[in-house]
């Protein structure tokens, strides 16, 4: 093994990987009762990897290692540069939070089907980021897919998990095959599979477009870009909640890393029309994901659909960065790239938070259907508070972190008219409109989710008997809430910190430190163009809220009485009369889903005197599922049935078939040469 540079950062990460690997191996061997060591070990490893990644990121070292394993003459190449270090931080912070949450799992929650695969999954995600040749990249990418698949099917007796696992496996296979083609195309006929050789290999525009298309399919299927998203809302919620947090918050970012690595590093200088699929699919995914999310009745599936939306935003931002970079507008490319990178970071925090919170709720009540929860703010006060921060962050509301990346993205859209190509000039306001719509819908979606789960009165006995999550779990959720808040307040600092990364990817940096009125101002283009200063706004809001409250309490009344809710003079005894999640989304369904999903409401009202209950049902048509998944699957099925005949031929016919094939191949070879 040879480490170029031999710095401690790589050793720290290698040690972390060794801990993950050992934890996986030991967990596979020990009995179920003694599995609880997995989470402390993973938390320590994640902290170690974070320290190494953080140091490597800020010192901007590039470290390389070469292991004589794997394919002969290729070996395994590893490289740690700022891009890997940045995404390594995202991954390991997520793993740390999920592992701390795991500390709170009781002994009865541990299972031989989860704990051995959890460290393997963590290790695989880390190594994908470090891989410096196509072989190791694909190998560990596949390991990541398979280990997460094993976690998805951990409750294998459940029919829903089975379906989720099946669809996930198919989509993961399609994605890996696409990536195989992408790397094959990049390596070319000479077959240099190390990334250094790929970088040196200049491709024709046609080949590079095909490579990018394949890479987009490969990474987009992992990131849930529509129409390759169908597995995600099935698989992410099916896993245990802390694994869902990792899959949604972190694994999707590995896909973002892969597409950035391919499009900005390996393929060389981008062409402007590469950006079109990113922008169009990204913007469509952002709105589409939310249209599903806002109608969803299951808390974890709602979060999964929202992941699809956020990945759409990230891909649209990457598309804008490609477009700006290829048009030579580097300062705008830096803004769009900063939006993509910061949104990856921010999304990993609030989505992990929301999923871990959903896990705490699931554990406390045994339910994840929105219409069966309610009033948890009284029984799970800490979880409720942290979840509120996550919900407001993901709705892109200031001064929290989701707004920082949203703001940057709108600033990038505003530079759009500078594009030389008319299509991009047309697309940039379209993207702006779609993202604005997505922001509005996200707020509606998360007001609905928080409102039905935590506010109001409990809608089921389970929700009424809920209890607060164990300390470790609330601590993990709280840690992420702190990150969301600090990331929002000091977004200007984060944008400054990723400057070297922006310079290497986009060719320009966003700004210099403390260029604005305060050290924490976030600036786009220049100081006269746009400034957003979260600490100042937060300070003003906090001061005016506190001052008003104190003034009102001191100068006027501070007495409070409790009484039954007024409710227009009709206080209802039953919590069933509250607005539910489905009633909340009814106006949105009337406005949006009539067109998009052809939603049909059916009311079955019995005549007066009849004893049967009235029924209300809503029917959706998921066009993407029907035409993009079911139709090809059916076509394939009928085709394979037709070819089934070939399985039952006599030996003579088989010999004839083989002979014919041989002749055909010979003819082809002869004419080719």
């Amino acid at each position: 093994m040879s480490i170029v540079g031999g710095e401690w950062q790589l050793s720290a990460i290698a040690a972390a990987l060794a801990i993950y690997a050992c934890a996986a191996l030991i967990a596979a061997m020990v009995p179920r009762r003694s599995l609880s060591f997995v989470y402390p070990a993973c938390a320590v490893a994640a902290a170690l990897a974070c320290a190494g990644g953080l140091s490597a990121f800020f010192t901007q070292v590039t470290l390389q290692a070469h292991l004589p394993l794997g394919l002969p003459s290729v070996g395994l190449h590893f490289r740690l540069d700022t891009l890997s270090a940045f995404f390594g931080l995202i991954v390991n912070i997520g793993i740390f939070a999920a592992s701390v949450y795991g500390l709170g799992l009781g002994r009865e929650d541990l299972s031989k089907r989860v704990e051995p695969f959890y460290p393997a999954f963590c290790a695989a995600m880390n190594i994908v980021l470090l891989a410096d040749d196509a072989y190791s990249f694909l190998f560990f990418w596949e390991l990541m897919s398979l280990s997460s698949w094993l976690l998805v099917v951990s409750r294998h007796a459940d029919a829903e998990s089975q379906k989720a696992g099946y669809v996930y496996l198919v989509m993961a296979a399609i994605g890996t095959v696409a990536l195989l083609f992408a790397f094959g195309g990049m390596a070319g006929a000479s077959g240099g599979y190390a990334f250094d050789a790929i970088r040196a290999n200049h491709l024709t525009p046609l080949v590079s477009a095909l490579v990018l298309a394949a890479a987009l399919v490969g990474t987009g299927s992992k990131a849930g870009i529509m129409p390759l998203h169908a597995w995600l809302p099935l698989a992410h919620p099916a896993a245990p909640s802390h694994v869902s947090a990792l899959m949604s918050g972190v694994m999707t970012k590995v896909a973002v890393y892969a597409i950035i690595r391919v499009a900005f590093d390996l393929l060389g200088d981008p062409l402007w029309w590469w950006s079109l699929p990113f922008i169009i699919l990204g913007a469509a995914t952002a709105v589409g994901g939310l249209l599903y999310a806002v109608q969803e009745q299951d808390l974890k599936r709602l979060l999964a659909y929202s992941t699809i939306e956020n990945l759409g935003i990230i891909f649209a931002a990457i598309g804008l960065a490609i477009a700006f970079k290829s048009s030579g507008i580097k300062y705008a490319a830096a803004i769009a790239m900063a939006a993509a990178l910061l949104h990856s970071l921010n999304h990993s925090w609030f989505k992990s938070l929301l999923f871990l919170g959903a896990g705490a709720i699931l554990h406390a009540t045994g339910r994840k259907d929105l219409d069966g929860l309610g009033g948890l703010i009284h029984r799970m006060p800490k979880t409720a508070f942290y979840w509120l921060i996550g919900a407001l962050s993901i709705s892109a509301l200031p001064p929290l972190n989701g707004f920082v990346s949203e703001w940057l993205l709108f600033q990038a859209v505003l530079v759009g008219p500078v594009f030389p190509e008319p299509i991009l000039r047309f697309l940039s306001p379209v993207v702006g409109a779609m993202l604005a719509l997505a922001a509005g819908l996200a707020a509606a979606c998360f007001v609905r989710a928080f409102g039905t789960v935590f506010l109001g009165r409990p809608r089921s006995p389970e929700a009424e008997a809920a209890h607060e999550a164990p300390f470790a779990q609330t601590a993990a959720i709280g840690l992420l809430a702190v990150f969301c808040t600090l990331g929002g307040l000091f977004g200007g600092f984060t944008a400054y910190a990723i400057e070297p990364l922006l310079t290497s990817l986009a060719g320009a940096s966003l700004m210099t430190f403390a260029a604005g009125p305060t050290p924490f101002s976030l600036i786009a283009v220049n100081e006269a163009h746009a400034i957003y200063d979260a600490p100042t706004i937060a300070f003003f809001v906090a001061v005016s809220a506190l001052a008003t409250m104190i003034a009102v309490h001191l100068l006027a009344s501070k007495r409070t009485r409790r009484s039954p809710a007024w409710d227009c003079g009709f206080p209802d005894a039953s919590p069933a009369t509250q607005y539910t999640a489905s009633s909340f989304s009814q106006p949105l369904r009337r406005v949006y889903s009539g067109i998009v999903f052809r939603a049909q409401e059916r009311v079955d009202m019995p005549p007066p005197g009849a004893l049967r209950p009235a029924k209300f049902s809503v029917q959706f048509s998921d066009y993407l599922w029907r035409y993009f998944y079911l139709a090809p699957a059916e076509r394939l099925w009928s085709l394979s049935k037709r070819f089934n005949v070939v399985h039952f031929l006599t030996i003579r016919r088989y010999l004839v078939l083989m002979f014919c094939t041989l002749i055909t191949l010979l003819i082809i070879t002869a004419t080719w040469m």
Partner: protein
Amino acid sequence: MPAPIQSFLAQGAQMFLVLAIAPAVTGITRRVKARLTRRRGAPILQGYRDLLKLVRKDVVLAENASWFFRSAPYLIFAFTWVAAALVPTLASGLMFNWAADVVALVALIGAARALLALAAMDAGTAFAGIGSSREMMIASLAEPATLLVALTIAFAAGTTRLPEVAQYLINQPIELRVSFALAFVALVIVALAENARIPVDNPATHLELTMVHEAMVLEYSGRHLAMIEAAGYLKLVLYISLIICLFLPFGMAPIDGGPEAWSVGLAAYLAKVSIAAVALGVWEVSIAKMRVFRVSEFLGAAFVFSFLAILLAFLSREVLR
């Protein structure tokens, strides 16, 4: 540039100016409506009296209300107040104007709205749920429209900072631009919807099935209700100021203006706000309220107008500096 102390004073003055005039603006609108329907109507200053009365009263909390229900009114008020204070009114050179640009301003309003919609669901009653669900449906169309209008104007001015936008518009010769006209219509529609005005919502109704905003605040009383009412008054002033700042900023004191320019700016601003309040009253008596599900078409029109505005602006680059 004016001296920092002057600029600071201007910012402070602005912050308390919007707060001071807010109840009166709503008062003017109510008065105009009353007179036009041949009623005498309440005095213009009734809003202040209402607030004073409410603040002095006890709070009656619903049994199920949590800490969120109690703290939300102050936060809603603060978010709205800060947003209103950030829009240049009489002068464009304000001390803390740099802290938030127009994108952040829209998001601040969004934060206040999300908190109110959440607070409404806390008591666990049916009517409040109706209110917040409809509010979020309206907002899901109104917020993107606002953002697109803001981006259109910001693009024309080459900056998203409101003082610079106003400054740019003051210095421009007056001309009709198609994109601005579309954006103006869109923003007026949004302003009507966001302030729970006819034809989207009726601020005077207490008929349960037609309420949006009023349904959300049904469970509030005493000082909490006062905060929410004050935030409502402020929001109206905020939207009127935003329309003035983005479309009719003439008379506004420039960044380097002195006290004389400020007094001219103040007079112009108060005149424009009063005209807008009167116009709103006239508008409200001359049109009927829409059914809730017609609202989406009304607001959809705003969204489409704002989208066309930004598309025109981007494609023609008519205003690119």
